[in-house]
């Protein structure tokens, strides 16, 4: 039996999962988009790796695998928008946050549970199908060992929490800014580039590359992808997971601090 608190958050995650199952057409369209983008980027990478073999330490098969993992995780990690933060921003803007705040629940854990429920749904729908299509159409470097897949899932979970924690900070800024459009745009741009969605972060040289690989966005996509590609093993795998866990800790704590400030100065919108 799970303790009461856990059961609440599991129920929240399950109900969010179920909410997303209601929108089948949107899900199908999303799967289609991920597949189409997968092909486009795959051919672009093939051209690039043909010119520069071993770019970023990836062989051709690894580069193509990276493409399809990016597409598979794009929705789950909300790399191109989506997720809870627009809903939370809207609730802050309209004052409906008042309802959330009159519940006996921790706001951060509540939204984390929501977002993880959504992430699991997106991993199963918009993750599995594009990756399977990619694996059929191209030769990918996917691991055989179930343990590697398990390590990948753990790393993906940590990545999803980092992604949540970042977007939670963005969403909470609405308490001060009222209009989240600007921050969302900046965050979208940073996420797209620094997660590795455009190009693997391993291809960037020098201090810029070093820095990019240490930023929290790297923990969202680059790290799980490298875990699946088998680029971290032994103590290296431990370090990769610790790197993610470190950002989880830092960003969730920052979110808590911001939440405290926000609720202390709450000016709930609307009468």
């Amino acid at each position, binding site marked *: 039996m799970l303790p009461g608190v856990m059961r609440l958050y599991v129920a929240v995650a399950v109900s969010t999962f179920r909410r997303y199952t209601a929108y089948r057409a949107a899900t199908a369209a999303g799967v289609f988009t991920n597949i189409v983008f997968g092909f486009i980027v795959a051919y672009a990478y093939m051209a690039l790796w043909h010119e520069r073999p071993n770019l970023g330490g990836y062989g051709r098969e690894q580069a193509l695998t990276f493409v399809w993992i990016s597409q598979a995780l794009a929705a789950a990690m909300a790399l191109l928008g989506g997720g809870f933060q627009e809903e939370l921003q809207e609730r802050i803007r309209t004052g409906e946050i008042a*309802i959330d705040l009159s519940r*006996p629940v921790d706001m951060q854990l509540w939204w984390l549970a929501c977002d993880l429920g959504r992430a699991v749904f997106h991993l199963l729908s918009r993750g599995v199908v594009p990756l399977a299509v990619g694996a059929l159409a191209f030769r990918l470097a996917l691991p055989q060992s179930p343990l590697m897949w398990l390590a990948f899932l753990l790393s993906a979970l940590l990545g999803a929490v980092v992604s949540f924690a970042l977007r939670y900070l963005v969403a909470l800024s609405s308490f001060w800014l009222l209009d989240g459009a600007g921050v969302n745009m900046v965050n979208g741009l940073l996420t797209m580039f620094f997660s590795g969605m455009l190009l693997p972060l391993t291809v960037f040289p020098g201090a810029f590359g070093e820095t990019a690989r240490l930023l929290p966005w790297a923990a969202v996509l680059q790290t799980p992808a490298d875990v699946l590609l088998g680029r971290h093993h032994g103590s290296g795998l431990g370090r990769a997971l610790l790197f993610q866990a470190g950002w989880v800790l830092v960003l969730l704590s920052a979110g808590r601090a911001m939440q405290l400030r926000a609720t202390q100065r709450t000016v709930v919108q609307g009468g």
Partner: protein
Amino acid sequence: MRNKQHHGGRGRFENNGGIELEDVEKVFTLRRRTGVLRRSREEVRAVDGISFTVAPGEMVGYIGPNGAGKSTTIKMLTGILAPSGGRLRVAGIDPARERIRLAHHIGVVYGQRTTLWWDLPLRDSYTLVRRLYRVPARRFHRNLDRCVELLDLGALMDTPVRQLSLGQRVRGDIAAALLHDPAILYLDEPTIGLDAVSKVKVRGFLQDINAEHNTTVLLTTHDLTDIEQLCRRVMVIDHGRLVYDGTLDGLHTLGESERTLIVDFERVLPPVTVPGARTVKTDGPRQWLAIPADASAAPVVAAVAAHHPLVDLSIREPDVEDVIAAMYARLPRG
């Protein structure tokens, strides 16, 4: 079980369903642009020194014009807003300090907002509420069955909230607010936009809950009929101050408010004269008769029907705004 009518102790209503406010204030600072870079700060006293006590099991109406400070008060009572000054206790708890602990003792219904989940069927929303408040299974099912029966929700349980009509949604919200047996229920405009049948259903249900569980109810509304049928006591707030605290009849007397009897006759008649009423307007065969709000309309209706060929009639209750405006005309502001 909660203690009924427990008195004594430091706060009078320690750990039960009472509400206490002492000189409570809420001041908002607004920054306004007055030039390209210049900002001026302006203080708005949304709640300006309010004191009142609501005993456990009391049903109290809390009314006032738009922007009077009603919602701000409710937000302070739920702990969402911290007061700028004064002392506030709900069920013995300081709301802003212990918002989450307080949440287990209160239920909140907003007529214009929903606490339910838009995409989920009512049933799933209630399951989430059960987990939220950790209601034991037996109590949950007992409370839910009762709400479903009295609020007529049976056929709606598998409907997503977004597909419910306003009246259905509000009934669903009221049920959600009561599943954890709150000692205190705040209702913010619960009947706004409801049709007559839904209003009657909601009011009847609230009366039952209050009678059975001794639930304390604080109700804000624009519909004086809500107050008339539910509350013996009404508090009026305006410009952040409590300007009246007493019975509804007393308010009508003070405000010299009038109900309007709208009468359709068979043909055009000269303005009718009936004891206890005066004709304020005529339009063809239709006439408007004003009756003091604290008097019964029955003798007037009987007198009109006895002497004139009547086709139809209806009664319009005075608006909160009218009553308060009229009250001001008589009451020197302090």
